[in-house]
């Protein structure tokens, strides 16, 4: 008897999820990825994360697979091999789209030879975003695919409310001083860390007190355990002595 109508497949898939009493075999289909995702999949089956304790096993042939893991943005050359792997896997099969490229084409979404995501060629059951997804994210994705955990993300739309206004950070510090501190911190520590450092420094400036600036900066830097941060604080404090920044 032939059973391949969509309704049959859906019924079989639900029975696979509820009655699976053995290992879930995973076959990894690389359709034009950068190999970052593959490295993370193999990191997920190392002793630290050990996906095999849940019976998740990577196999070498799509004919053994219950779960197909598609990585990569589906390039023109890898489209047919990906489809062949999909056809070769026995029904019912769960298709997992892995990584930013698999979910939507990722950073390669507008390349000329890229189909842009696994869902352009095969029906996908679970999406695991990430570039690449970390091993814990991979394990979570498998748990969602096998129906053990529920998804956490929900689509949401914020509509601007009446009288909604963005606040200004550290309004008590004069504008030019604020800009100067942020610029100096970012110059010394890089863009992302620089902002955190500037935030901490400006927070310190806003604490009320009647100590002179030089002493305040010195006590603040002395309380810092990281010598690199302490030096950055001292240097920012030094540049604040510039006559143009004096109130």
């Amino acid at each position: 008897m032939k059973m391949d109508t969509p309704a049959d497949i859906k019924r079989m898939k639900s029975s696979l999820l509820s009655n699976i009493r053995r290992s879930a075999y995973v076959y990894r289909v690389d359709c034009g990825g950068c190999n970052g995702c593959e490295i993370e999949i193999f990191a997920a089956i190392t002793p630290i994360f050990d996906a095999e304790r849940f019976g998740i096993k990577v196999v070498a042939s799509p004919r053994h697979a219950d779960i197909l893991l598609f990585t990569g943005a589906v390039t023109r050359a890898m489209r047919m091999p990906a489809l062949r792997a999909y056809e070769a896997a026995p029904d019912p099969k769960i298709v997992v789209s892995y990584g930013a490229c698999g979910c939507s084409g990722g950073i390669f979404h507008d390349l000329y030879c890229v189909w842009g995501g696994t869902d352009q060629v095969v029906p996908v059951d679970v999406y695991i975003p990430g570039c690449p997804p970390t091993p814990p994210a991979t394990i979570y994705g498998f748990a969602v695919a096998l129906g053990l955990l529920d998804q956490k993300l929900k689509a949401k739309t914020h509509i601007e409310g009446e009288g909604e206004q963005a606040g200004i950070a550290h309004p008590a510090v004069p504008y030019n001083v604020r800009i100067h501190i942020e610029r100096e911190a970012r110059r010394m520590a890089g863009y992302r860390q620089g902002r955190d450092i500037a935030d901490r420094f400006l927070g310190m400036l806003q604490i009320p007190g009647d100590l002179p600036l030089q002493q305040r900066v010195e006590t603040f830097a002395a309380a810092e355990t990281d010598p690199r941060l302490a030096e950055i604080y001292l240097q920012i404090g030094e540049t604040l002595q510039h006559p143009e920044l004096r109130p």
Partner: protein
Amino acid sequence: MFKLLKEVFRTGEATVKYPFAPLEISKDFRGKPEHTAEQCIACGACTIACPANALAMETDVAAGTRTWSISYARCIFCARCEEVCPTQAIKLTPDFELAVTNKADLTVKAVFKLADCVCCGEPFAPAKEIAYVTALIEATSVTSADGTTAAVSEDTERRRRMLATCPSCKRVNDLVQIARITDQQEKRR
């Protein structure tokens, strides 16, 4: 044999307890970008910085709205958006559990209103952005201004009007002003 067992007991268990217990995450882990829409001014800096075009901004002039959106499916978690955001509205959180069964759940949107130009009445910029810039400039000028209150309020009013004017109207206004100045110079001769 005994040596090996000793080594095994000394090492202990290496496997993390992850799905059953929360995972320990390092300090600067870059996970899901969280957008605080109340703090966002819809300036579009993040959409320009985003290398993967996961962040997008669409302007609907007819409805007078601008829609900001992020697709976690396309995001590569580089934190460029966090770096460039002027109001710290977008921040990367340590949240990594992003797997979904429905692709639509990977998109988060925020709709902002556009402000109309005071001269021509056409929508030209997000209302929140103009309000933020006005507040920023006024906070600066309060600390530096030391004139009579009447002059200050007149100055503020003029500045507010200029900020709420669209670029093309500004150009036209400039031309009118230049024409008036040259006219006066002509008369003086």
